[in-house]
C-alpha cells in the first residue's frame, strides 16, 4: 500500500526537484503523445528543446526569439506570483495585458507623428495604468462586495478582447492601411518603437523590465515587510490579520501590481515584437504566465527560469509545427501537461511516500 505522510517541514530538496521532475515527465508523456501522432518522439522533443538554440540553420533566427517570448511571460508571471502567494487569484492577466497595450498604443497614435523623447515614457506609464485600472475592477468588486476575483478577472479578459477587436477595426485602424484592420505599425514610428536594445539578442525594454521585476520581487518577498505580509496572508490569513495586515489593502496592492505589470508587458509587446494593435496580437501570454508562475514555484528566480523554458517551448513548438507538421493543439497540450505534472508531483514537497504492507486486523 502506498501512503502519504506529512513532512514536519517542507522538503527543500523536493521544492527544487519537483519542477525538474515535472519537465522530465512532460517530455515522456509528450513523447508518447507525439508517437501516437506518428512522429518520432525523440526528434520532436529535440526539435522543441534543442533546435531553437543550437540548430545550425534556424538558431540564428530563433535564439533571439527566446528573450522576446520569455520577457512578457516573466513580467506577467512575477506580478501574478505576488497575488498567488497571498491567495489572491488574478486569472485575467490576459485582459490587463490587452488593455495595457491599447492604452500605450493609444498614446503613441495620439502623438503620431511627433518625434519627441517623452512619447515612449508616456506610453509606458499609460500601459501600466491601463493594466492597473483593468485589474482594479475585480479588486474593488472583491473588497466592496466580496465577489470572486477569479471569475471577474477571467470574464474581463473576454471584454478586453472585444474591446481590442473594436479598436483594431474602428478607432485605432490605420488611416493609411487601405481599410485593413489593425493600427499603424509602431515599429515604423521611431519615437514610439520598442526596438532591440542590443542587436541580435531579442533584448528590448520589456525584457529589461522583466529582469528588473525579478530583482524587485525578490527583494520585496525576502527583505520587505510587505512581502512578508503577502507570504503570511497566503499561509495563514488569520495569523496575518493578527499581525496587522489589512486584507482589503493587500487585495488592492496585489491585483494592482499584477495588473500594472501585465499592462506593461502588453505595451512593450505592441510597441515592439507585435508592432501594431491587431485583432489577435495577444498570444495568450497572460494565461501562459499562470503556468510560468507555478512552474517557477512562485519564486522570482524560479519564474525567470520557468519563463525561459516556456519561451523555449513556444519557439520549439513553432519549429516543430513547421518542420515536423505537428498540430498546434499538440503543442498546447504539451505545455498544459507541464502544469499538470508540476501540480501532481508537488505533493512530494509536503509529503513523503511510504510504501508499506497492508495488514488485516
Amino acid at each position, binding site marked *: 500500500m502506498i501512503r502519504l505522510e506529512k513532512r514536519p517541514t517542507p522538503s527543500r530538496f523536493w521544492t527544487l526537484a519537483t519542477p525538474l521532475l515535472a519537465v522530465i515527465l512532460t517530455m515522456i508523456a509528450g513523447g508518447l503523445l507525439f508517437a501516437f501522432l506518428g512522429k518520432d518522439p525523440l526528434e520532436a522533443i529535440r526539435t522543441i528543446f534543442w533546435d531553437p538554440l543550437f540548430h545550425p540553420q534556424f538558431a540564428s533566427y530563433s535564439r533571439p526569439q527566446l528573450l522576446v517570448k520569455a520577457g512578457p511571460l516573466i513580467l506577467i508571471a512575477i506580478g501574478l506570483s505576488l497575488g498567488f502567494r497571498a491567495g489572491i487569484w488574478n486569472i485575467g492577466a490576459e485582459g490587463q495585458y490587452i488593455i495595457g497595450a491599447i492604452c500605450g498604443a493609444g498614446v503613441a497614435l495620439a502623438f503620431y507623428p511627433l518625434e519627441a523623447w517623452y512619447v515612449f515614457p508616456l506610453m509606458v506609464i499609460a500601459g501600466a495604468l491601463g493594466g492597473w485600472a483593468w485589474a482594479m475592477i475585480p479588486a474593488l468588486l472583491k473588497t466592496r462586495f466580496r465577489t470572486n476575483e477569479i471569475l471577474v478577472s477571467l470574464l474581463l479578459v473576454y471584454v478586453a478582447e472585444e474591446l481590442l477587436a473594436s479598436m483594431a477595426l474602428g478607432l485605432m485602424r490605420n488611416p493609411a492601411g487601405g481599410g485593413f484592420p489593425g493600427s499603424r505599425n509602431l515599429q515604423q514610428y521611431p519615437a514610439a518603437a520598442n526596438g532591440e536594445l542590443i542587436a541580435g539578442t531579442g533584448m528590448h525594454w520589456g525584457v529589461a523590465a522583466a529582469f528588473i521585476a525579478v530583482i524587485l520581487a525578490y527583494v520585496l518577498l525576502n527583505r*520587505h*515587510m510587505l512581502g*512578508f505580509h503577502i507570504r*503570511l496572508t497566503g499561509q*495563514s490569513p*488569520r495569523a496575518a490579520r*493578527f499581525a496587522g495586515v*489589512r486584507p482589503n489593502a493587500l487585495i488592492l496592492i496585489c491585483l494592482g501590481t499584477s495588473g500594472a505589470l501585465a499592462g506593461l508587458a502588453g505595451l512593450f509587446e505592441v510597441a515592439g515584437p507585435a508592432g501594431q494593435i491587431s485583432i489577435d496580437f495577444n498570444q495568450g501570454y497572460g494565461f501562459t504566465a499562470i503556468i510560468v508562475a507555478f512552474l517557477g514555484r512562485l519564486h522570482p528566480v524560479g519564474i525567470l527560469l520557468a519563463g525561459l523554458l516556456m519561451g523555449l517551448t513556444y519557439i520549439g513548438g513553432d519549429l516543430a509545427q513547421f518542420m515536423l507538421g505537428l498540430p498546434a493543439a499538440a503543442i498546447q497540450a504539451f505545455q498544459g501537461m507541464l502544469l499538470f505534472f508540476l501540480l501532481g508531483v508537488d505533493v512530494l514537497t509536503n509529503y513523503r511516500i511510504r510504501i508499506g504492507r497492508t495488514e488485516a486486523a
Partner: protein
Amino acid sequence: MTTLLTIEGLTKAYPGVVANSDVSFAIAEGEVHALLGENGAGKSTLVKMIYGLVKPDSGRMILHGHPYEPAEPRAARAAGVAMVFQHFSLFDALNVAENISLGMESPPPRRQLAARIREVSDAYGLPLDPDRTVGELSAGERQRVEIIRCLLQDPKLLIMDEPTSVLTPQEVEILFRTLRKLSSEGTAILYISHKLEEIRTLCDSATILRRGKVVDSCNPREKSAAELAELMVGSKLQTPSRPGATPGEIVLDVAGLSVRSASAFGTSLRDVTFTVRAGEILGIGGVAGNGQDELLAALSGEAQARAGSIRLRGTPIGALGPNQRRRIAILAAPEERLGHAAAPDMSLTENALLTGAIREGLTTRGFLKWPAARAFAERVITAFDVRTPGPANAARSLSGGNLQKFVIGREVLQRPEVLVVNQPTWGVDAAAAAAIRQALLDLAENGAAVVVISQDLDELMEISDRFAALNEGRLSPPRPARGLTMEEIGLMMGGAHDMETPHVDA
C-alpha cells in the same frame, strides 16, 4: 478483575525522536486507567497505536487474550476500542444524528438512529437532542455527541484525551458520573489528562510516562497531587509563587463593549465591562465558545469596536488596529497556536517577526532586519526554554507546549503594559504550564495589567487577583478570586448547560 488489554514493549520512533520506548502496562475490564505525562512524553503516540492510527515499530498488544494489531481505526473500533479526541471532528452545519451517522460503518435509518441516541443518552445521563444543529451546541454538548458516538459502538475500552478541558465544573461532575457508570458495567477507560486532582478522584490506577518510557505506575488515590506531578516531571515542580502586590491605577478600562462575531457560529460580545489595574491579573473563565475568541480579537485589535468602549489610561483605543495597539504596548496571544498566533509553515524567526516587528525594531523603513529578527527569536527560545534545534525550524515542527512557550514568550519579552492571553497553557505539560504562569505573574509583578482568558479554572484560581466568567458573550461582574468556591464559579459560568435534570442510575 480480568485483564482486557495488555501492552508489551511497545516502541515507536520517529526521525530524531523516540516517542515510545518499551512501554508495557495492562488495563483490566472496568478499570479507569490514567495515562499521565508531560507534553511530548509519548501519551498521544501510545493511544494512537492502541487506536490503530500509528503502527508500532516493535512490541505487541493483547486484547481479550488475542494478539491485537489494528491496522486502522476501523479495525480498532471493530475490536471494541473507541476514542474521544481532544479536538472534536463534527460538522457545524449538520445536526447531531447526521454527525453521528457520518461516523458509522453502516448507519441505521435516521429515525431508528435518533431513537438509539435518545436511549443511550438517557441511560448515561447525557441529555442530547438528536435533531439539534451542532453549530448551536456548547463545547460540553459537542463532547457528548462524541461520547455517544463512541457508546453506540458498545466499546470495551474507551480512550479519552483531555476530556474536561472544555467543561464547567458541573459538567465535569456529570461526565465523571457517566464514566463511573460505564466502568461499573465493565467498560475499561483509558483517561489522559494532566489535571492531577481529576485523576485522583476518578482513576483506579495510573501509568506515568516520561520521555517515552514508563517511569512508574501507582494508585493515584494513594498519592498527593504534588507527588504525581513530581513523578511526571522527574523533579520537584516549581509551583508559581507571587508576592502579594498592591494593584496600581486602572490601565485598561472596558465599558459596554459589544462586538459582532466574525463567524456565523461565533458568539457576539454583549455589553462587556471590566477594568484591569497595573500589576493585576484578571482571570476570565467560561466554557469554550462563549465569546473568548471574540474578546481576544476585540482587545488585540483584530476586531474593531467603538473607540470609547476600550480605553488605555483614559485614551479611547477601541478603533485601533493590532499594530497601532502594539505601538502603545497592548499585546495579545490568541488561543490557536497554529494558524493564528503563529504561521505553521514559517520559521520561528519569521514568527518572531509576526508580532515583534514594531516593538523590537525589526524593520527599517519597511525593510526587514533578519539578523535582528533571528536574535529576537533566539532570545525568546532561550528565555522561555523552547526546545527546538534553532530559530530556522518551522513552527509546526514544535510540540504544542514548546510552541506555546514561544508564543507567550514572544509577547512577554516585548514589555507589554497590557497583555491579553487566551488559553495560555492549553494542552501544555505541567512544567511548561508552570513556567508560563510564572512568567505571567512576573509580568504583573512588574506593573503590567494582565488578562488571562482560560478554561482551566485551577489555573485561573492560582494566578488571578479577580475572576469573571464569560457566558454567551456576556461577562459576569468580576469578583476577587480568593475565597470563590467552585459552586459559585460554576454558577458564574452559567451552570450546567441544558442539564437541568441530570440523573444517572449508578
